[in-house]
């Protein structure tokens, strides 16, 4: 049983320097229609050798967060504020402001990347071996032969069948799962300390996804690489990550160790997401729980808590909450549409951005919530 501390702290406890610490990151896109804050004050950290899952629906800012770390945000987007502190080899670099030439040696070197669609991220006119060797040659002072040997070694590491033969094949000759193995081989070729994987299994079938996830966790255990796994699939996160951050509308709304988050979700959005999945055996208990409304577009983010128009617990002065229910606002309490709730700690390591996380009653599992029909 986890006891709640008497006074919730308002900033993460100081630990030994994490591998990557993102602090109040703001990344916005400047379009003719106005400024679009895709990432709006995100703070996250990841320790060496651990896996952090970032989950959320499309447009929540999870990919832009990753792209900001790699400094691959395309114009008209730019990092406007915040720090991205990467501690590597005894020094700490702020990737948010690092000059581009120095950034180039980090990107693909000390930080590897795996993207969703291996067909579009691999170059169709070069062989698999050339592409991996190129990554090695960019970051290491080695001969072509050594780079090619490294490429072969990496293909063996990711357990691609017939690695020697695959080295001279082109991406189109490989299946989706094999291509994703090549992507992983490329990401790991320079011994990165951190790998950022953006939806690495979304384009794959479940049995192939199982192979790739198994491979990723095996490699992490063997090489000690930290992984940031970005996905919309709660199940993938639950099974592969140590820590989870849930994002909604450009902000982190809940963060906790994976086991804690899925056993005792505290943010109404997380609770709603978990309850919206049909769980086996509840077929005849009526319709699925739904979150009303839809994900807001960044140009129309609501004021205050960005989830309040869809939230069953939103407390608003006289107005209606998303569920149509009016919850009276106790004296002295801030209405959900007036102020941004701070991310605060409700249990050790469990952070929630909701004014009412404490008053929602004892934390319950998503299954209980689903069965009880909290959202309807």
């Amino acid at each position, binding site marked *: 049983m986890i006891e709640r501390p008497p006074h919730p702290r308002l900033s993460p406890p100081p630990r030994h320097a994490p591998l990557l610490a993102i602090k109040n990151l703001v990344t916005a896109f400047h379009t003719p229609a106005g400024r679009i804050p895709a990432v709006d004050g995100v703070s996250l950290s990841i320790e060496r050798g651990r896996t952090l899952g970032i989950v959320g*629906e499309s447009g929540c800012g999870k990919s832009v967060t990753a792209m900001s770390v790699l400094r691959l945000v395309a114009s008209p987007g730019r990092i406007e504020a915040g720090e991205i502190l990467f501690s590597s080899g005894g020094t700490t670099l702020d990737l948010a402001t690092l000059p581009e030439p120095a950034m180039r040696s980090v990107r693909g070197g000390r930080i590897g990347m795996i993207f969703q669609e291996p067909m579009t991220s691999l170059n169709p006119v070069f062989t698999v071996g050339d592409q991996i060797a190129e990554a090695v040659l960019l970051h290491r002072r080695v001969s072509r032969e050594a780079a090619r040997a490294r490429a072969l070694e990496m293909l063996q590491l990711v357990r691609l069948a017939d690695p020697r033969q695959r080295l001279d094949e082109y991406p189109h000759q490989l299946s989706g799962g094999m291509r994703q193995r090549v992507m992983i081989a490329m990401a790991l070729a320079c011994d990165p300390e951190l790998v950022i994987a953006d939806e690495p299994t979304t384009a794959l079938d479940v049995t*192939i996804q199982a192979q790739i996830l198994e491979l990723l966790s095996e490699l992490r255990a063997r090489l000690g690489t930290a992984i940031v796994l970005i996905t919309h699939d709660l199940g993938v996160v639950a099974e592969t990550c140590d820590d989870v951050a849930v994002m909604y509308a450009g902000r982190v709304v809940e963060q906790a160790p994976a086991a804690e988050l899925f056993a005792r979700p505290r943010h109404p959005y997380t609770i709603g997401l978990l309850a919206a999945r049909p769980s086996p055996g509840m*077929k005849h208990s009526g319709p699925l729980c739904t979150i009303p409304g839809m994900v807001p577009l960044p140009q129309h983010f609501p004021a205050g808590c960005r989830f309040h128009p869809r939230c069953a617990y939103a407390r608003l002065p006289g107005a209606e909450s998303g569920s149509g229910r009016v919850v009276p606002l106790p004296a002295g309490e801030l209405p959900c549409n007036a102020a941004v709730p701070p991310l605060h700690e409700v249990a050790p390591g469990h952070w929630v951005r909701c004014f009412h996380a404490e008053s929602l009653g004892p934390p319950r599992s998503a299954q209980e919530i689903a069965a009880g029909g909290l959202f309807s």
Partner: protein
Amino acid sequence: MTAPLVEVEQLQTYFPIRRGLLRRVVGNVQAVDGVSFSIARGKTLGLVGESGCGKTTVGRSILRLVEPTGGRVAFDGLAVRDLRGRDLRNLRRRMQVVFQDPYGSLNPRMTVRALIEEGLIIHGLGSARERVDRVVRAMERTGLSRQALERYPHEFSGGQRQRIAIARALVLEPDFLVLDEPISALDLSIQAQVVNLLIELREQLGLTYLFISHDLSVVEHVSDEVAVMYLGRIVERATAAALYAQPLHPYTLALFSAVPTVDPARRRRRIVLVGDVPSPSNPPRGCRFHPRCPLAESVCREVDPPMVSLPEHAVHCHVAARELARSGGNASVAAATIAALLADRATPPTATLSPG
């Protein structure tokens, strides 16, 4: 038990592979190869499987959006494959389809009204005024407001676009809907809304569904019966309750175990299959699953497994057949034995070469 609305028998859909100057047929992609099932009126059959297994082709073959190369499809007693011209068009009014991608399936240059009305015009149904009434009624059924009539698809979110696609299918008052991955392109919080809508419509309008999806838990929630496809064949078919409680085919077990879940209590021991799905242009002989099956025996490599039927359950697998015979047809005993066998055999693949 009423007569089935849709009956499919030994359905076969091959796509020719043409090569060379004369475009000679050098082989066939056996997308669907001997699929049989029936769906009773008002019921839902879920069709699951991985990409390339032929589930979409089954749906399209029933609608004759692709021409089957063999087998029999009956819809309300009519032989679908023999219909031509007006008869086929009349039949198509009664069978509609909703596709996966509401971004690709709606013409961006047409207003919502024109999109939904199109089917009525094609089938020559109603006067202009009646058509608008029917369009509005279909929109209301799917939770779209009248204000949306003159707007364009790009003004809507994915979930609302899928509602437009559903309204477009419903306006013709069909009996049967093929739902081809209707929620896969939608955000998680929107998927549940569309699933609830589909179930509500089925109950209100007495619709019959073929629900094609790779999402096993949604299929369980929506379907009365579920069929699992692999490489052009149905490998197992059962009532949703029986299939999920007692999967008998090793592929079904592997598929279920591969789905990541947030609930530790539901987590199955993962059976990681080695390798990829073979090409449907050159399927393996014997049981099509044998190259990836941890339980494959010599008979599996040679002989195509026949169907073994129980009242609520049918499976094509030599091992399952033997276990069912051994347990006197007790599916839960056989399922437990097969699961135990798989847990024993499916040791995690060992690293071939391990450079430091």
